Each structure stands twice: as structure tokens, then as C-alpha cells.
């Protein structure tokens, strides 16, 4: 093939730098600003990438109890419990539907898949949550998104692609369906389970809409709701702690953002390599 032109190489390089910077700059800027002092913020335009006088004041402000700390615990709890519950139910259903000869499995699969095509809508969902007595409970943050049809399809496809001989051999050895799941299928599925856990965990960690709809009591708010109130709508968190050294408002807001993003940044690198396969199974076979 002919050699690429120098202009083309340059344009491509520039495009790559712009794309990467567009993602990385805002994230680094948010982290930098959360450590910034008042003087750093005054001197800066927009976000502070590298504070000259780094300080932990902002984090001190948000972790001295109060709204953010409480919301953080709510979010962690919802994420852990929700992810575990979703995983259990999804694994059970995906496995139960993974063999074609199971009575009625096709109809059940269709019931689940059909929900990808419609959504009952805000008002009926709200009335359901009220009717079930889930309004203002943490369960309202977990139950409505318990199983994702997409994840179900991904997991089921994975189970179906395991070699048939494994099942046959286990059956010959006298293992029942449940034993096969626990002893053979699950240990072979660690990678896909990790990805699906991430998908669920991210949903619960970012849960904003269910909280907005179903939680009237602000004491129960998870982190995204607190973010909206104190970062987007600009209400002050500082006012409560009178007498202390006040961290700059902007730094405090960015610190709240940081604690909302960091958990994702921490687990992401470990799971990233499995995405492609998972997404393609879900999108093409689904």
C-alpha cells in the first residue's frame, strides 16, 4: 500500500489528541479543582488542573457528616444490595432459559424480551410504586430496575455457548440442574458475570430518576440527588458548619463530583477488556 501523506498523518494525530483530551481534561479538571484553595480558583479560568496550594478542606467539609456523607452511604448500600439482588435473579433466569427444551422457556423469554420494546411510562410506574407501598423506601431504588433484559440476553447467550458436553458429563455423573449451575456454569462465567455486575452497579450508583420519582424524604437521597441539589442547583453545603475554615464553594462541589466518579474510575480498568464481547452478544444476538 502507498505511504500515508504527512498531512493525513498530522490530521489523524490531531484528531486523536482532541478526542482523548475532550474526555480526560474535564475529569482531571474536576479532580484538580476539588483540591484547590480559594486563591487557585480565583486565578484560574474554569477548572483548576494543577492547584498550587492543594488542600483537603473541601473533603473535610463534605465528610464531617451531614448530607453528603449520608447520601454516600445510601448509594453504597443501594449499589451493593441492588447489584447482588440483580445478579442473583438474572443468573437464575438466564440459566433457567438457557436450555431450549425447558417447558415454556420460549414464552417466558418473549415476555422478558418484549419489555425492551415498550416502557409503561412515568405515571403508571409511579402509581404502581405507590400501590405496592414502596414509595419513600429504599426498595423503590432497586425493585424497578432489578433485571435488565439486555443483561439477561447477554448472560443467556453465554450459558448457551458453553460446550454441551459439560452438561452431559455432569448429568452422567448424577448432578442436578442446580448443582450444574453452581459447580460448573458459574465458575466458567466469571468474566461475563463481572461485566454484568459492572453494568448493574453503574445503574444503581447513578440512580437518579427513581430517586427523584419515588423518594419524597430527602434523608433517604442517594448521591446523584444530592449532586443535583448542591452542585447543579448551587445550594450551599457550607452554611451549616459555622466557625470553621470554609472551603471554596466550587471546590466543595467538585469534591462531591469526585466521590461520585471515583468508584467508577477504580473498577473500570479491570473490566474494560470484556466490554466488546458483552455488548456485541447483547446487541447482535439480542
Amino acid at each position, binding site marked *: 500500500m502507498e505511504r500515508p501523506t504527512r498531512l*493525513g498523518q498530522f490530521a*489523524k494525530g490531531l484528531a*486523536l489528541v482532541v*478526542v*482523548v483530551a475532550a*474526555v*480526560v481534561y*474535564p475529569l482531571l*479538571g474536576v479532580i484538580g*479543582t476539588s483540591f484547590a484553595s480559594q486563591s487557585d480558583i480565583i486565578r484560574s479560568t*474554569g*477548572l483548576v488542573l494543577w492547584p498550587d496550594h492543594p488542600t483537603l478542606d473541601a473533603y473535610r467539609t463534605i465528610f464531617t457528616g451531614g448530607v453528603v456523607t449520608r447520601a454516600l452511604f445510601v448509594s453504597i448500600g443501594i449499589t451493593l444490595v441492588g447489584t447482588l439482588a440483580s445478579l442473583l*435473579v438474572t443468573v*437464575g*433466569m438466564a*440459566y*433457567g*432459559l438457557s436450555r431450549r*427444551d*425447558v*417447558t415454556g*422457556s*420460549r*414464552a417466558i423469554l*418473549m415476555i*422478558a*424480551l*418484549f419489555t425492551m*420494546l*415498550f*416502557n*409503561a*411510562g*412515568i*405515571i*403508571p410506574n*409511579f*402509581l*404502581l410504586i405507590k400501590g405496592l407501598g414502596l414509595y419513600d423506601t429504599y426498595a423503590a431504588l432497586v425493585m424497578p430496575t432489578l*433485571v435488565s433484559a439486555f443483561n*439477561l440476553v447477554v448472560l443467556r447467550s453465554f450459558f448457551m455457548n458453553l460446550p454441551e458436553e459439560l452438561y452431559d458429563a455432569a448429568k452422567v455423573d448424577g448432578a*442436578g440442574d442446580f448443582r450444574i*449451575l453452581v459447580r460448573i456454569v458459574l465458575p466458567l462465567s466469571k468474566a461475563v458475570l463481572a461485566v454484568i455486575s*459492572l453494568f448493574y452497579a453503574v445503574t444503581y*450508583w*447513578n440512580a*437518579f*430518576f427513581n430517586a*427523584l420519582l419515588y423518594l419524597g424524604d430527602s434523608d433517604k437521597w442517594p448521591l*446523584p440527588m444530592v*449532586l*443535583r441539589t448542591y*452542585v*447543579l442547583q448551587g445550594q450551599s453545603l457550607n452554611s451549616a458548619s459555622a466557625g470553621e475554615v470554609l472551603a471554596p464553594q*466550587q471546590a466543595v*462541589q467538585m469534591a462531591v463530583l469526585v466521590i*461520585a466518579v471515583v468508584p467508577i474510575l477504580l473498577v473500570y480498568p479491570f473490566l*474494560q477488556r470484556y466490554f466488546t464481547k458483552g*455488548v456485541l452478544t447483547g446487541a*447482535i444476538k439480542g
Partner: protein
Amino acid sequence: MADTAPPLTREKRSKRRKVDEGAAPANATPPGRAARAQNRLTLRQRLKRDRVMLLLTLPGLLYFVVFHYVPLLGYVVAFQDYQPYLGYMHSAWVGFANFTAAFGEPAFWSATLNTLEIALVQLVFFFPVPIALALLLNSIVSERLRRFVQSVVYLPHFIGWVIIVSIFQQILGGAGLLPDVLGGLGLPRYDMMSDPDAFPWLLTLQVAWKDAGWGTIIILAALLNIDKQQYEAAAIDGAGPRRRLWHVTLPGIAPVLILLLILNLGQILSVGFEQILLQRDAVGPDAGEVLDTYVYYHGIKDNDWGVAAAVGLVKAVIGTALVLGANKFAHRLGHEGVYRGADR
């Protein structure tokens, strides 16, 4: 177990047919050995055999029924003058009054127009972005560099809307980077976050930031499936890089692009709800109200349940029809579509 086949009653026969229908058209393929063995068992015996599998399926099935199908009944509210303290049972029936009330309201039509405008801007200006990005990624020769860029661009997909909107507020908002830079240059400080005219563009920019990278996954897979020999043949025939892009690459990924386009058209009434709700106040309802936020504010904020549910129902029916139609259309074009491939 009983080896002799008990005579099938009509009921059992119809049940059996239902199960078989899914697998293949009745006469197309002869039933395999598994199917024949199955036919020898009665429904009860089969349920007993499959009890563990079915029991494992049950909680999930229950979830889908309770949280996706039962709420559909709640749409009766659309035909009622719903009063929460009276409930469905005792609220007065009003026929189609809620629908006519909504259709007579300028706010409803404004929300519809906003929805369509935002959807259209996103379709035209966001849809090509992942394609361009995928082509760029695909052209990186160094495996290491490509992996790195890919992990960077996938990342924003996992960041929630509240966080993304907050970050944009820091960069484009009143006291953010863009106005500061403009001010420093002696230009008027422009706040894009609260400019109603820029709203569809702002939303598109944010969607691109969040999901352009994620959207490349499926296109990259399609690119991977193009036969390398086609490129070599084209190069030998004297096609330059641009001609190869036009005559080999684009036709190669066209089926996937068409499918994505059709699916996007199906979702046209559901432009990002969370994203818009979070920013509606900054630009005001004239520019920021879409069908979903209309339903939210009328129903849950203003307790105008009947009208909100009616609008929601219209939206849901048109939306589902669009998705089903789009999927049918994708089949017509010879693609698998959304749900046909489910049992592969």
C-alpha cells in the same frame, strides 16, 4: 417414566403446539430426537423434569410481570378524572376528555415540537459521530495506542447524567471555562447552558461526549468483518485511500448502519429524559419541555394525573409502533432486527 404416549386431549395438544411453534415453522424441519422424546412426556411430567430450571426462572419472570406488564393497567387513569384518595375503582370515568384537553393545550404541542426538534438535531449531528470515531480508531495501526484510546472513549458511558451535566456546567456555564476564555478575549461572555436556542445543540454535544465512544463498539465489529482481500484488490486496481473508504469500507458496514438508523428512528420520541429534566429549568419550559418532562410535571408535580397519563399513553403507543415498525423494516431489509435473533 411412562414410555407409552397417553392420548393427547385437545388442551394438551394446543399447549404442545405453542411450545413447538417457537422453535421452527411446523413443517419446515422434522422434529429432532429431543423433540420426539419430549412428546412422549405429559405436561405434568415435563414440568416435574424442568422444575429446578423453572423455579430459577420464576423470580425474574415475576419481576417482568409486576414491573413491566402490571403498570400497563395503570393507563386506565388516562380515561379517568383520577383522584389519588379515590383510587382507580372510584375515580370518575371521563372517556377521551383527557386526550382532547391535552390536544387543546399549546404547551402539549410545544413539547411535541421540542421533542421532534431535539430528536432531529441528534439524529443528523450525533448519528455520524460514532461512525467517524470508529473509522479513526480503526485506522490506528499501533495495537497498544488503539487499546488506550478505546478505553478512554468508552469511559464516559458509565458516568451518570447528573455528573455529566455538572461537568458541563463547570465548562460552559455562567462562571465556567468558555465564558472566562471569551471574556479574556474581550468578547461577550456567552453562557450556553442557559441559551434556549442552543438547547438541542447542547444536548447533542453532551450525548456525543457520553456515548460516541460506546457507540463505536458495534461499528468496529462490523469493520472487523470486512474481508481484507477486498482492500488489497481495490488497492491493486488503483483505488486510493479515499476510494477504498467509499467503495469498500462503507458498503461493508452499511447493513449495521442501516439497522442502527432504523432503531434510532424508532426511539425518536424518547430523547434523553434524565438529561433534559436536569437542564430544563436553566432554559425554561419553552425550549426545555419535551413529552416526557411534560408528563412528569403535569402528572407528578401538578397532580393532573389524567391528562399526563393520556399524553404518556399516546407517546407510548406511537413509540412502540415506531419500534415495531422499525424492526419489521429491518427484517424486510434482511437484517436480524432487535428480537428475531433472540434464540440464536
